C-alpha cells in the first residue's frame, strides 16, 4: 500500500527502456530514503540525549499526519499552514511526553523507559482510532503536477519531499553546529557529565531535543502522507524501519541516520521492484538480521555495546 503510487508509476512505464525504470527506482529510493532519514533523525537525537529508544516516535509521526489532514480538510487551510500547525502541535506533544513520562523515569532501569514508551504509543494510537476510526484517508496536496525531466516523469510531490527533507536536514545541521543552543545538544550527546560541568541545563536540552524530534516527525508525515495514506497504524512499520536505520547508522549518530535512511530507502525501492513487492517490507529487517549476525556492533559504530 505504501507505494501504490510507485507501482502505478512503474506499470505505466513497463516496456520502456530499462534505464528509465532504473532511474525511476533511484527516484523512489531517494524519496523513501529522505523520509526515513527525517524520522530516524528525530529518533537518533532523542537516543543521543536520553538513551531512550522512543517507541512512541512512530505514533508522533502518525499524530502529525492527522493534525495536517484535519487542518487541511476540516479547516480548509493551506498545505504549508497545515505543516506548521502539525509541527507545533507534535512538538508540544513530544515535550509533554518528555516532562510527564521520560523525565520521572530518568533514574529507572532501562527496561522501564521502553515499556513507558510503548505505553505512550498504544495510548496515542487508540485515541486517534477512537476519534477518527481505523479507515484509510487520503491527504490532499496542492502539488499534483507531473514534471517531465529528460524523458523521466516525476510527480511534483516527490520532488517536494526530497527537497523539503534535505532542506530540513541542512537547517538542523546548521542549528546544531552554528548556534549556541544547538551546541548544547551536541555537547550533551557527546558527554553528559562534561555538559553538566560547563553549566548546560539538562532539562532544557531534553525538552528541546524532544521538540525537534516532534517537528521532524510532523514535517516528515506531512510531506509523505499525500503519496501514502493516513491511518492509525501508519507509524508502525516506519518506526521499526527507523530503528533499523539508526542501528545500522550507529545510535545517536546524525550522519548515520541520514546515510542509513538512504541505504534502506534504496534497498526497498530496488528490492521491491526487482525482487518482490510482497516481501518489500521485509527487506529492511532482513538486512538488519544479516548485518547484525555478521557484525553485532552495526555498520558505522565504533566500540562495543
Amino acid at each position, binding site marked *: 500500500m505504501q507505494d501504490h503510487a510507485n507501482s502505478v508509476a512503474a506499470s505505466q512505464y513497463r516496456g520502456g527502456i530499462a534505464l528509465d525504470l532504473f532511474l525511476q527506482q533511484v527516484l523512489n529510493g531517494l524519496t523513501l530514503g529522505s523520509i526515513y532519514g527525517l524520522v530516524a533523525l528525530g529518533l537518533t537525537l532523542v*537516543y543521543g540525549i536520553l*538513551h531512550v*529508544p522512543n517507541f512512541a516516535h512512530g505514533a508522533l509521526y502518525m499524530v502529525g499526519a492527522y493534525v495536517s489532514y484535519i487542518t487541511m480538510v476540516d479547516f480548509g487551510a493551506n498545505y504549508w499552514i497545515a505543516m506548521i500547525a502539525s509541527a507545533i502541535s507534535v512538538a508540544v506533544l513530544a515535550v509533554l511526553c518528555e516532562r510527564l*513520562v521520560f523525565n*520521572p*523515569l530518568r533514574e*529507572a*532501569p*532501562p*527496561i*522501564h523507559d*521502553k*515499556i*513507558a514508551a*510503548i*505505553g*505512550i*504509543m*498504544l*495510548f*496515542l*494510537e*487508540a*485515541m486517534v*482510532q*477512537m476519534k477518527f476510526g481505523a479507515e484509510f484517508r487520503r491527504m490532499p496536496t496542492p502539488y499534483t503536477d507531473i514534471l517531465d525531466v529528460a524523458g523521466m516523469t516525476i510527480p511534483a510531490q516527490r520532488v517536494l519531499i526530497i527537497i523539503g527533507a534535505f532542506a530540513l536536514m541542512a537547517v538542523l545541521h546548521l542549528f546544531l553546529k552554528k548556534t549556541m543552543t544547538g551546541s548544547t545538544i551536541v555537547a550533551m550527546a557527546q558527554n553528559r557529565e562534561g555538559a553538566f560541568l560547563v553549566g548546560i541545563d539538562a532539562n532544557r536540552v531534553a525538552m528541546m531535543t524532544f521538540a525537534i524530534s516532534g517537528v521532524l516527525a510532523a514535517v516528515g508525515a506531512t510531506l509523505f502522507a499525500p503519496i501514502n495514506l493516513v491511518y492509525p497504524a501508519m507509524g*508502525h*512499520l516506519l518506526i*521499526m524501519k527507523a*530503528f*533499523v536505520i539508526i*542501528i545500522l547508522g550507529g*545510535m545517536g549518530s546524525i550522519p548515520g541516520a541520514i546515510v542509513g535512511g538512504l541505504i534502506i530507502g534504496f534497498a526497498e525501492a530496488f528490492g521491491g521492484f526487482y525482487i518482490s513487492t*510482497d*516481501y518489500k*517490507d*521485509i527487506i529492511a*529487517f*532482513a538486512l*538488519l*538480521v544479516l548485518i*547484525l*549476525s555478521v557484525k*553485532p556492533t552495526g555498520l558505522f559504530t565504533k566500540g562495543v*555495546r
Partner: protein
Amino acid sequence: MNALQKISDFFMTPAMKMVLIVAAVLFPFVAGNEYQIYVMALAFVWAIAVYGMNIITGLCGQLNLAHGGFFAIGAYVLAILTVDHGWGFWWAFVAAGVAGAGFGFLAGIVSLRLKEHYFAIFTLCVGFIIYLLIDKWEELTHGALGIINIPAPNGFGLVDFTETTPFYYLALTFMVLSVWLAARITNSLLGRSFRAIRISDDLAASLGINLMRNKVLAFVLSTTYASVAGALYAGLVRFIGPAEADVVHTFDMITYLLVGGIGTLMGPLVGTMVITWLTQSLQFLEEYRMIVFGPLLVVLVIFFPRGVVGSFLGWRARRMAAAQDAGKSQENAKKKSPTSPVATNREAGNHA
C-alpha cells in the same frame, strides 16, 4: 500479630497454593455460565505465555518483543500439522513446542549478541518478520484467510475437549505445570544465574556465569512456553489468523506481566487474571482497551514498577523488618545488652 499480618503470612504458605488450586478446580461449578469458564480457560492459556515472558524479561532482564510471534508460531505449527497434514493433536502439540524451542534457539543466538535497547529493537523486528511471513506465505499459512477447523485436543475417547469445561481443566493442568516449572527454575542455580545477569552482565560474567549460554537458555525456555501456549490457544479457539502474531499481543502480555509484578513467581498469573476480568467487566473497552492500558503502563512503571505481587512482597518485607526492629529495641530496653545482628528476612523477596 494482627489480622492483616496473619493474612499476609498465609499468602506465603504452601497452603495458599492448595487454596488457589482448589478454587480453580471448583470454579466451573460456581461460574454463572459457560462463557465465564471459556474466558478463564483463555486467561490460563495467556498466563502460560506470560510465564515464558517472565523468564526472559523478568528473571533475565531482556525485553523480548517477539514473544507474541513465538506464540503465533506455536499456534500455526499445530494448525498446519493437524489441518493440512492430518497429524494427531498431541503429536502436533509436541511438534509445536519443539518448533518454538528451535526457532527460539535460532533467534536467540543472533539476537542475544545484542544488549538492552538493541535486543529490544531487534526482537521487535523479529516479531514483525514472523508476522509478515505468516501474512504473505499463503501456500504454507493460508495467508490472511487464516486456518479454520483446527481439531480440539484428542481426549482418547475419555473426555471431549470440544466442550468448554474439560478444556478448562486441561488448560488449568498445563498452567499449574508451568507455574511449577517456573518455580523450579526460579529457585534453582539456573534461576539465580538469570537474576545475576539481570542485575549486571559484567557482574554475572565475573562470577563465572556463561552469559551467552544462560541467555540463550532463558530465551529458548521462554519461546517454548509461548509456543506451547499458542498451540493450546489454537486448540481452544480453533481458528487462527495472522492477527495472532500482531505485536499488540506482545504488548498485552507486557501489561499482564507489569500489573502482576515483573520477575515474581505469581505475578504473571495475578496480572493476567486481573486484566482479563477487568477487560471483561468493561466490555465496551475491548477495542479501545489501549486507551486505558497505555497510560496504565506508564503510571505503573513510574509509580509501581513492582506490580501487585512485587508491591505486596515489598510491603510485607518492610513490615517484618519494622516488627523485627521494634522487637529488637524492646529487647534492648529490657536486657540493656547489645544484640547480635539478626539475619533479616532476605527470603521474603524471593518467594511468593
